[in-house]
């Protein structure tokens, strides 16, 4: 054994200058997936070491590989994140039965991935039986379960989780579509779990959750730090807040017009991340005592106007994350710029079209310029603007050097925009924000010329994900764009109506591209022969044709929603999938292998 060991040491050492022992220690400190990927490519031994020691894997699209492949390469995996439906599912653009079933993955986890402690499914379809299998096989070791924007399961499935997964530190269900039968699942958690730290069923429409069970959880779980719940009258939570001594994060609500107000509510002393649904100007003062502590504030579902925003935000000098709607207005952004010097993430969603008819509740270049000069630590910015100029984008490029995720949507309320096209501004922004990894730009016809689209290609040296809407003028712009973007892995295009021919050519030129999604695709017209040009080895192409969906909205009105067609193309080691709904057409290139 001694001789063989020395031989092995020598041979590996001579190749790489490092013995296995040394590498084995060093590699444990390498977490970044891109670094790990690079390590695994050096030689077979390093590949094996990486495979044995890799703790977490994110599979960005579950159809790019198979559960068996994952297990064969990473048998000792401890944490897995799987994503299913395209991002557009969050905007209601993907049929519910598109795919992304977790069942085959759960089967593999149950049978073979014995070290797995943390599971995160995002935008996938989960059945109650999947949760039961997971619970029975991994229930004793599972520490983290995240069903993130998932669907297909009911509270019966959660009952299994409550009964079987007693070591959960994190249960995350945010924004999932859950069929609610009763509130027994939360009672099971209350009875069985004493180590829960994060409980999140925010935005799930679960109404049968009893506040007494929440109180019990708060009493039993001494480390409960973050709780985000669906609708529960705040006054009922007084007991819960008393019990949750170390709570730092809370999202919930709603508030109603209570005759005695909310003076009886006292929040836990460490509370610093807060989101209160339907909080209006009358309820706002109850959070004022805590405002100086606030690190995160979620006003997306609050009922505050511009003035309220100003009053609240000026009290929050330590704010790092702010989410709200564009009712914050330019004036509110100026207050943010003055008060919130620690701000790292800012998301401003668009209010309903009927709102913001006065200019006060709109965000424009004025607010952006103030923000750029005031919040120099900003890393994530997502904003729906009503007006824009090149200068404001230049400001962002000049001041916000830490920006790594920038998303801008130009709303279509105003007919005339102050300063279009945005070629110069976009170029300045991209050149200035060198750390940018994610970039989204949704304009309107005339918003960006072909030259501007070319700039995006030329100056996005670090960008991995891009969403482009209504940019460019013609195929020439797309072709110019595709000469650049060296690291672009995932591209989403909407409303641009480039020809299939140009899309196919762009796909080939974008060297890192592994995922393409095109909305408003002019599919299956007579020129769709050009689709052939897109066909490639290992490249799956799926088409969902334009369709009309009839829905009944909350007030009982029948609404006909027209969904444009879209094309999805992605690399896969597994070939075309077979679990797609009738709606989807697949183009199959695999035949050529015969």
């Amino acid at each position, binding site marked *: 054994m001694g001789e063989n060991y020395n031989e092995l040491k020598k041979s590996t050492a001579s190749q790489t200058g490092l013995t296995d022992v040394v590498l084995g220690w060093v590699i444990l400190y390498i977490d970044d997936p891109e670094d790990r990927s690079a390590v695994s490519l050096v030689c077979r031994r390093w590949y094996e070491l990486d495979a044995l020691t890799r703790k977490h894997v994110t599979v960005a699209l579950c159809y790019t590989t198979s559960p068996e492949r994952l297990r064969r390469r990473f048998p000792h995996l401890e944490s897995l994140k799987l994503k299913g439906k395209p991002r557009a599912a969050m*905007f209601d653009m993907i049929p519910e039965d598109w795919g992304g079933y977790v069942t085959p993955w759960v089967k593999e986890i149950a049978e073979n991935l014995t070290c797995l402690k943390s599971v995160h499914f995002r935008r996938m379809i989960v059945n109650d039986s999947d949760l039961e299998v997971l619970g029975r096989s991994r229930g004793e070791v599972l520490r983290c379960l995240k069903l993130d924007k998932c669907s297909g399961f009911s509270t019966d499935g959660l009952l299994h989780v409550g009964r079987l997964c007693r070591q959960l530190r994190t249960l995350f269900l945010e924004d999932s579509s859950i069929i609610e039968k009763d509130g027994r699942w939360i009672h099971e958690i209350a009875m069985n779990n004493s180590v829960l730290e994060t409980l999140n069923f925010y935005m799930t429409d679960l109404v049968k959750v009893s506040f007494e069970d929440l109180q019990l959880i708060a009493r039993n779980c001494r480390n409960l730090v973050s709780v985000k719940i669906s609708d529960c009258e705040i006054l009922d939570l007084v007991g819960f807040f008393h019990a949750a001594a170390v709570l730092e994060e809370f999202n919930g609500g709603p508030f109603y017009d209570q005759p005695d107000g909310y003076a009886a509510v006292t929040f836990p002393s460490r509370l610093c991340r807060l989101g209160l*649904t339907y909080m209006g100007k009358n309820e706002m003062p109850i959070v004022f005592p805590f405002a100086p502590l606030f690190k995160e504030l979620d006003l997306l579902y609050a009922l505050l106007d511009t003035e309220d925003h100003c009053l609240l935000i000026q009290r929050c000098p330590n704010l790092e994350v702010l989410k709200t709607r564009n009712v914050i207005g330019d004036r509110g952004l100026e207050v943010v710029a003055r008060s919130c010097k620690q701000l790292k993430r800012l998301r401003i969603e668009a209010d309903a079209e009927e709102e913001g008819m006065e200019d006060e509740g709109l965000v424009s270049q004025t607010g952006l310029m103030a923000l750029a000069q005031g919040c120099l630590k900003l890393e994530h910015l997502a904003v729906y603007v009503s007006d824009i100029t090149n200068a404001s984008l230049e400001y962002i490029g000049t001041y916000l050097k830490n920006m790594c995720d920038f998303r801008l949507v130009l709303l*279509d309320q105003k007919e005339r925009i102050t300063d279009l096209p945005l070629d110069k501004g976009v170029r300045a922004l991209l050149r200035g924000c060198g750390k940018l990894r994610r970039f989204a730009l*949704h304009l309107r016809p005339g918003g960006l010329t072909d030259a501007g689209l070319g700039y995006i290609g030329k100056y996005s040296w670090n960008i991995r994900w891009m969403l482009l809407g209504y940019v460019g003028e013609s195929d020439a712009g797309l072709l110019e764009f595709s000469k650049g973007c060296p690291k672009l892995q995932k591209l989403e295009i909407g*409303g641009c109506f480039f020809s299939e021919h140009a899309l196919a050519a762009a796909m080939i030129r974008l060297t890192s591209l592994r995922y393409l999604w095109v909305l408003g695709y002019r599919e299956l*017209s007579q020129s769709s022969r050009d689709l052939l040009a897109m066909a490639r080895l290992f490249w799956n192409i799926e088409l969902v044709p334009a369709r009309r969906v009839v829905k009944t909205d909350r007030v009982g009105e029948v609404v006909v929603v027209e969904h*444009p067609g879209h094309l999805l193309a992605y690399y896969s080691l597994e070939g075309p999938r077979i679990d797609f709904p009738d709606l989807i*057409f697949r183009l199959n290139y695999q*035949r050529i292998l*015969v």
Partner: protein
Amino acid sequence: MSRASVELDFFGMEEQNCCKSRFQKSLDRRLSFRGLQGALSKVNPELIKSVIASGLKNPQGQDNVYQMDSNKSFSVPSSPKETQSLFPALPLLTPAARATSENGPEKAPLTIFYNGTVSVFNVPRDKAESILKLAVEVEGNSKNVEPIDSKVASPPSDRQQLLETLNGDLPIARRKSLQRFLEKRKERMTCASPYAC
């Protein structure tokens, strides 16, 4: 879930691939049935059958409109859908079509989706054209008829309307969660108090 996938055999490799699973083979059969003529929706297949029966020259002398070729025609119930999805024209693959078509130069498969069923007929081109004309007449101003001439396959006018509406005018997408909140808020504002509604 009915397997209405379309595997477009770009390179005419079908005949060469013998080592296929049964599943794969059944998919192929359906492909060649469907052919490239597209499909009609909202046209009653019974009507079509009567048109075919009246005019079809049947060499085997059968009255049965379902030709028993090497490729069988059949009518299968498709999975129930909420909305009757429009079945768009398939991409044009005329070279491949010729390679895979085993129905002879005259007859090609015609697939009709109607009321939750799928019916496939083998008809010659002129018959198919007259069926379509008939469908147009019967439906009056129905805009859902697929033109038979695959060389100039334009999308059905209904879908064309859809495309025109959407062309250059995609609405700003909002996150589902935010959309739900905005609707709930509207509800709240229209009710005086939660107890009154």
